[in-house]
């Protein structure tokens, strides 16, 4: 694994920890965008000596969506919601970070037990991918704000994308673009729904969406 790839992987790990520890929503959005950009660049840096048009196109589309379009959509939802700029976790920041460290340990442990079947160089991305998936799921369940849940979904998606990069390089272009389109639509529709939730309820607090139950 080259120096650049190694550094990017470490930055992805750090970005996860920052999301767990940050208290301001805008900081979380920026960090997730940064993480998306890192993962978008990764396949380019890992294949610097064998670049293809297809690879550049794919990486470009992915980076553009994750680093520019998504933060813009979420930032807009946040601005419309006005004052709600805090993350408001169910689980405190220190406890979240401690959980993050546990996740990292679990991901390393699990990653070491999986067969290294990936292409040369990206095999060590697996623990990072697993860690990112864990953090995404944790953010979805441990944060109160609807915006943070969308962020959790994006982190989860980043993790799965990284896993795919580590193992399945032969994903056809059509499917790859289809997946990107779906994720874009997901964030777009979630953004619209956030707008409606804020207009209807004057808050984005999913803990208070409790009208429907048995």
């Amino acid at each position, binding site marked *: 694994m080259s120096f650049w790839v190694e550094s990017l992987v470490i930055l992805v790990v750090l970005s996860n920890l920052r999301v767990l520890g940050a208290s301001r929503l805008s900081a979380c959005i920026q960090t997730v965008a940064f993480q998306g950009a890192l993962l978008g660049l990764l396949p380019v840096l890992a294949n610097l000596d064998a670049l293809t048009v297809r690879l550049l196109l794919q990486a470009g589309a992915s980076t553009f969506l994750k680093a520019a379009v998504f933060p813009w959509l979420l930032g807009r939802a946040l601005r419309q919601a006005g004052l709600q700029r805090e993350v408001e976790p169910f689980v405190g920041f220190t406890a979240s970070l401690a959980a993050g460290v546990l996740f990292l340990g679990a991901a390393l442990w699990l990653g070491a037990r999986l067969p290294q079947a990936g292409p040369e160089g990206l095999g060590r991305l697996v623990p990072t991918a697993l860690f990112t998936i864990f953090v995404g799921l944790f953010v979805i369940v441990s944060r109160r704000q609807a915006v943070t849940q969308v962020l959790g979904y994006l982190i989860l998606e980043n993790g799965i994308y990284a896993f795919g990069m580590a193992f399945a390089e032969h994903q056809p272009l059509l499917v790859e673009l289809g997946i990107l389109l779906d994720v874009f639509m997901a964030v777009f529709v979630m953004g619209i729904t956030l707008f*409606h939730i804020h207009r209807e309820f004057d808050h984005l607090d999913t803990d208070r969406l409790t009208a429907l139950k048995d």
Partner: protein
Amino acid sequence: MIWALLGVPMVAGAAAFLIRPDGPRRLLLLAAALAHALLTAACWGGLPGPALGGYLELDAAGRLFLSLTSVLFLAAAVYAVGFLKSAGHTKEEEDAEGFLFDNAPEAVFTGCLLLFLGTMSLSALSQHFGLLWVGIEATTLVSAPLIHFHRQRRSLEATWKYLLICSVGIALALLGNFFLAVAARLHPDLLMTGRELAAHAAELDVTWLKAAFLLFLVGYGTKMGLAPLHTWLPDAHSEAPSVVSALLSGALLNCAFLALMRVNAVLCAAGLADFTGGLFMGFGLLSMAVAAAFIIGQTDFKRMLAYSSVEHMGVLAFGVGLGSAAPAALLHAVNHSLTKAMLFLTAGNLLAAARTKSVGEIRGLLRAVPFSGFLWLMGFLAITGSPPFGPFISELWILQGALSRHHGALAALYLALLGAVFVGMATIVLKMSHGEPSERLKAAPAEDDPWRLWPPALLAAAVLVLGLWVPRPLLNAVKEAAVVLGAR
């Protein structure tokens, strides 16, 4: 042919967003639904060839589910015209909280409805697992605005839960896709279709295959509504407009079921049928038990129907898990879809008459709204598996499958749970149907809108016919589909 099946609803859907006058847009909806149904019918003459290098292909299983989707969509489109005429531009009163609300723009509703048909067709046509995932996730995204048609808090909450829970669930299925690719890493050039993978099943890595199946089961199981992953389902199905609920229950759940069956076919070919069968049976019976627990004493009649869908998804999973009963499960999917769509459309008519979903405020349906009251009662008998309706035949066939494989205890549990659901639903439906009309129903408008009465009536007739006589071509079709899906 395949491109036409996808193109008609997609293009019509995109156009519906742009057409401003209501009349032509409703006509477009009907025309597209009819064209799709005719194209699907033409596929029964002979299966069209593959498209896109084998990524898209209509096989016997896809044709069965595509036909179901198409028939239900045609019924729903006719009903939607009547529904939009009455609900299009008026403010309505929220029944639970009593304030006024608007409806979403009709153009968005119609457009999303048509795109919903297009994405469901994509799910039925996809052979490639990646493309199948794209199709299933897309169904979630285009159907979310449909649930939020009534612009009110409860539907908004349901939409949010639906979006988030299903998107996260389906994201895990994407991870399952990658696991599947890892399992096939000895063949890096293998096309990731069910058929290719099944043909090379012996060379797949068993551990990764099992892990992939678990992720698919959680992912697509969430979408299909298997307990304990069903939590979004009662909310979304009860808060959506009834015509949307009919499509969600009758068509969408089947798409997720088909996706799971396609994965299952690969595992069966790899000799893991016992592993997947056990999981299917366990989740199936658990779903039936959870549904029974929530149906008994339910106070909202659309929620009751939603839990009944959870129950029937459990029946399907149980049937598939038995292996030899897979054709029975597929026949049950047909019966359940027709019956449940008919029940939801009827529920929509009841809701329009009584303006409440609360069971406690509805009495005397048979006198106040005789036509819908009769359909409601009949639908209840059909969905709980009473003779002489379609679901009775398929549920009996599944029971037979369980007994022939010497699962006596499981068969007894299956029967007991079906019985519990019957009792739970009977208490609710009989109370609603009989007696003097209650306050809410005294001022019920006359049932005079043919757009809203014919679709459930025709579906009911189909359910009755399927109970008296299963046509030979249908029987052959489910058997053929079961073979495609790798039944032993």
